[in-house]
């Protein structure tokens, strides 16, 4: 018999069984424990860290690069034990996430100082993303936030496709105490944008938030539809949309990168909102996204209630990757 791979070593199977067992316990063990105190840095520890980062959806490439940087320091004996390694890892991640530096201090304020204050032109915020990520819910929460800050808000129901999309946004508008502009199901979304922006100008509204239908970034016709809405907005309000928020579900895996790329190239995403962080998913794909596209993460969604939207805090986020 000629076997595919050399001669099988008798010990190999044992080694395999062992490594499978390790993988299992690895999953159970918290990284926090792995890195506790004076644990020595050895290849096993690094392998466990790799698993932890991968399990948080950071992806192969990002994980490899982060670990490489750490490994270099270990080799140069800059890092002595588990505790120092942990600090270093967190710093690496924070470094990536705050690469967007300038945007962070204003994170609490999506209107970024509302240059439009005093003028009649409203701040126009587009909310986009693939299906079911939490766009409509986020809009309800955001409207509430802006109201709390004393701004006048108008919602635009430009998802004319999904069943009961209007009704859903209508409930949020009432909860947030803001007005809603809508048309019949099946209407041209750009026409709803037109209506909403005209209404906003007439009423000197501070911010218009546009809900858009969920769409997969691979569908060029639907992406073109978004572009058209954007053009319509720009015609009515110079510089609009001022913000294009890409809503991403924290459970999203590696596909998130492709989503961010395509939405950015089609409609110029300005910020990311990471929803459903109240679950067990870590949302690590945003690290890869920030790394590649430099998009700031502005808010995170942490529940289904109106107040469950908070500014993104890199420190908290990074800590949660190691829980």
């Amino acid at each position, binding site marked *: 018999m000629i076997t595919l*791979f050399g001669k099988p070593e008798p010990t190999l199977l044992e080694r395999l069984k062992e490594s499978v067992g390790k993988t299992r316990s690895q999953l159970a063990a918290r990284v926090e424990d792995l890195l506790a105190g004076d644990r020595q840095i050895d290849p096993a520890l690094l392998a466990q860290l790799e698993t932890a980062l991968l399990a948080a959806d950071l992806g192969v490439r990002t994980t490899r690069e982060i670990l490489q940087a750490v490994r270099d320091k270990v080799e140069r004996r800059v890092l002595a034990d588990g505790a120092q390694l942990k600090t270093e890892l967190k710093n690496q991640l924070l470094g990536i996430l705050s690469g967007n530096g300038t945007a962070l201090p204003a994170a609490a304020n999506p209107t970024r100082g509302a240059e439009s204050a005093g003028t009649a032109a409203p701040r126009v915020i587009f909310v986009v993303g693939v299906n079911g990520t939490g766009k409509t819910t986020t809009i309800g929460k955001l409207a509430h936030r802006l109201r709390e800050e004393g701004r006048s808000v108008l919602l635009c129901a430009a998802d004319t496709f999904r069943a009961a999309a209007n*009704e*859903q946004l209508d409930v949020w508008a009432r909860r947030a105490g803001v007005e809603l502009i809508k048309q019949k199901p099946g209407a041209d979304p750009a026409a709803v944008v037109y209506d909403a922006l005209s209404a906003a100008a007439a009423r000197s509204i501070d911010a218009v938030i546009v809900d858009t239908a969920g769409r997969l970034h691979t*569908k060029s016709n639907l992406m073109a539809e978004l572009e058209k809405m954007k053009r319509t907005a720009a015609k009515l309000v110079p510089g609009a949309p001022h913000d294009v928020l890409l809503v991403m579900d924290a459970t999203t895996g590696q596909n998130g990168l492709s989503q961010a790329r395509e939405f950015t190239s089609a409609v110029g995403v300005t910020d990311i909102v990471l929803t459903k962080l109240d679950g067990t998913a870590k949302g690590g794909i945003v690290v890869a996204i920030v790394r590649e596209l430099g998009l700031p993460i502005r808010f995170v969604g942490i529940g*289904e209630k109106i107040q469950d939207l908070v500014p993104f805090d890199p420190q908290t986020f990074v800590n949660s990757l190691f829980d």
Partner: protein
Amino acid sequence: MFENLTEKLQRVFKNLRGQGKLTEEHLDAAVGQIREALLDGDVNVGVADELLAKIRAKAQGAEVMLQLSPDQQVVKIVRDELTELLGKHARPLFSSRPPSVWLMVGLQGSGKTTTTGKLAKWLSSHGHRPLVVSTDVYRPAAREQLAQVARAIGLPCWAATGTDKPLEIVRGAIREAKLSAYDVILVDTAGRLHIDKELMTELGELKRELQPSEILFIADAMIGQDAVRSAGEFHRRLGLTGVVLTKLDGDARGGAALSIGKVTGAPVKFVGIGEKYDALEAFYPDRIVSRVLGMGDVMTLIEKAEQSVDAKKAAEFERKLRRNEFTLEDFRDQLRQLRKMGPLEQIIGMLPKLGPLANLPKDAQVDEGRLKRVEAIINSMTAAEREDHSLIDGKRRKRIASGSGTSVQEVNQVLKQYMQMRKMIKQFGPAAAKGKLRGLGKLSGLS
């Protein structure tokens, strides 16, 4: 763009030629590449590592098959292992005494309500009388959504009036089903987190009350590593009977299917491939495996091709391929054939991103509208121009543009694409002629 597994393995084994023998290092390198492919495809890291151990052991003991190269043989081992994990193609379950109940569960936004509508439509077209009912008393307009879905597909929806309690709602639906002889009740539920104790308990109560024949976990194909936790917990609480993988019409690899299969043992019964209510398909494990590994859904593609490609035209095309006389006329024929095959995104998603097709995706993301414009442009050419593209100079391009209501730029684009195709066919022709890549050869009109 991810490199697909075959390419990765080819690289691993490249330096093998001449040397002839695969060593332990080759195996290590191959396993590393397979791991990367699985992780890129969103297979959970723990699940991947367990799979790798098995794959490694199998590769270790595998006998050399003369008809396969080492990389092909390793790919085959990987595919077999993953396919086995996903189980066999499974049929939906009904209870012996109607009405059967199908309970739809899952995380927020995964596609439960839409899938409820799709399944109702599917059941109805298979001779059943389905009734849908929503127990989502939490999310704004959730019940209204299902009511509108039902209206859109022309099927009944139990509108529980006067109660906000899921248990009472489903009791009403059961009464109604018995009264009006509906044989399947599809129960939509609110999206919930697996760690939400209260709402998970609620599902347990619904299960006890309904004794469903199917408890379907509706999972988003884009979900990543956390799928093992959520699916695992839903399964532990409820005992899932099946999985529906939604939003497979995008470019997600769908490795979560493997993670979910591993932790629940429940088979994927359907896949969602669009927002419309007929965008539901049966699930075939081998197809998703190719997809996870980035090798395209070749099987489906070939089937679709066989269904819709006119055999005579195809033979003619093959002849032309061999003789290398691919004209704009043929280009147009190919476009038409392609359009007959269905929504373009679906087809592109199925193509393996390898060989000459590796460089296609950007250009290939044309929508139906653009395809029609391309056709209009070719229609505006004279027969002579279609036969010999070199005739088409600047002046003719202007004429063609105005004739087709497009721009010169677009005409240039079409001509460029056509030239690329010709070039591609030159490389592709011999293989197609040998009959090796038969199905693909016919399809190479894509661009």
